[in-house]
């Protein structure tokens, strides 16, 4: 028997385990395994605030929840067991979608990362699942041998291995938690549509601005370099040059970043070519077109036509990390062709700028 069942220790249990004091924990439930936290299916304001913070901190987050078993509603030994990651957002979406449902939730330790990313890394994997089944002594809690996993967990989990090692049969549920209700109604079969990963426009709009965030720091340093470089004259730093050349160049570079990081994701299926580098080149033509109205110097315009599409193209290529359909072989192919071109382009750009500066300074 588990010693935790001792009623005199239950108060201590609560203070020892942080999972009992979280806001989504309503109470505890006495089971053959001891006390298990009973969670709410309601998402409150604090949860929503955390979701927002998860997003803006660009996937890096520490919104973890304690791994282990949770109860939702009033589950018993015949209730289903849903398996999920210990990323707070994933957990919240699941408990929200399972409202009015009596079940157990088994949370794996994935380092606070969502199911798909964690499965790709292998932390949402066969080993961790089998370990958690043994650690929690799940077979003493439920009388059946079924686990329901999100379909994307299959990237890290091998269902037949789990069954071999633990006796539990893995049933893959739908990709998205929002389809769980129809999955349950449909006798634990997901509809064809719920088995597909999609990338609809509203989702692309939601993730696109996040692509800009990591680029902003580099953009800031480049802006300072541009201001000094274009402002520099024999007489010192000239405000006039900063204003008419440095500043427009910074704005054009920013618009190239936006074409790659925002226009490409949003317009994704409407842009020509399948390659992200080429899609980025296409949207990256807007900025050099604008440059025709900003500068009259041929070298500056030439610089814009090489530099700005390259910035947009590379930024678009980085978006492959966020998409739901790019393969490593494809991205490797793009990079093997693209990287040498980008590097050559940057070398040419630096040469153009040097020639430009020398001519402005009257050296040549």
């Amino acid at each position: 028997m588990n010693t935790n069942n001792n009623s005199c220790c239950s108060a201590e249990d609560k203070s020892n385990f942080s999972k009992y004091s979280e806001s989504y924990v309503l109470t505890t439930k006495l089971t053959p395994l001891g006390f298990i936290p009973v969670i709410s299916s309601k998402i409150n304001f604090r949860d929503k605030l955390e979701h927002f913070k998860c997003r803006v901190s660009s996937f890096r987050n520490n919104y973890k929840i304690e791994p282990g078993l949770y109860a939702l509603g009033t589950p018993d030994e015949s209730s289903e067991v849903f398996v999920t990651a210990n990323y707070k957002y994933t957990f919240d979406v699941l408990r929200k979608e399972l409202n009015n449902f009596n079940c157990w939730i088994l949370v794996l330790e994935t380092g606070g990362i969502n199911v798909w990313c964690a499965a790709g890394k292998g932390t949402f994997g066969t080993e961790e699942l089998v370990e958690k089944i043994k650690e929690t002594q799940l077979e003493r809690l439920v009388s059946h041998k079924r686990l329901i996993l999100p379909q994307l967990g299959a990237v890290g989990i091998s269902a037949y291995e789990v069954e071999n090692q633990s006796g539990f049969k893995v049933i893959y549920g739908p990709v998205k938690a929002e389809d769980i209700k129809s999955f349950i109604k449909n006798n634990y079969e997901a509809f064809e549509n719920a088995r597909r990963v999609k990338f609809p426009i509203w989702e692309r709009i939601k993730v696109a601005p996040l692509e800009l965030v990591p680029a902003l720091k580099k953009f800031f340093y480049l802006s300072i370099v541009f201001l000094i470089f274009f402002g520099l004259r024999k007489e010192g730093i000239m405000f006039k040059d900063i204003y008419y050349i440095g500043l427009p160049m910074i704005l054009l570079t920013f618009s190239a970043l936006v074409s790659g990081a925002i226009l490409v994701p949003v317009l994704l299926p409407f842009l020509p070519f399948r390659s992200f580098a080429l899609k980025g080149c296409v949207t990256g033509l807007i900025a050099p077109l604008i440059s025709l109205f900003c500068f009259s110097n041929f070298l500056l315009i030439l610089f814009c036509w090489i530099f700005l599409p390259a910035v947009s193209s590379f930024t678009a290529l980085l978006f492959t990390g966020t998409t739901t359909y790019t393969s490593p072989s494809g991205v490797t192919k793009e990079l093997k062709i693209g990287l040498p071109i980008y590097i050559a382009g940057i070398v040419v750009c630096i040469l153009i700028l040097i020639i430009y500066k020398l001519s402005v300074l009257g050296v040549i």
Partner: protein
Amino acid sequence: MKYLKNVSTLEFDRNKCKKCLMCTVVCPHGVFKYENNEIKITDRDRCMECGACVNNCPYDAIKVNKGVGCAEAIIYSLLTGKEPKCGCCED
């Protein structure tokens, strides 16, 4: 939406397949289909090499070079020679 043509390393060995249908369940892009008593690859250009089918085929009938299609991770790997490491969902 489809990615580049003819790049996926997906391989399917029809002789090893026992038609358990697991691959048709786990693939997020519906690459495998059960039709006329036969498992078929519908459109390999849709394959993102996630490896879900390989992990879950009990009869070793599928092969793929599994990985993440993330430029940042692959640049890291090309430059350092190490395994691709994806920084976008690192904790």
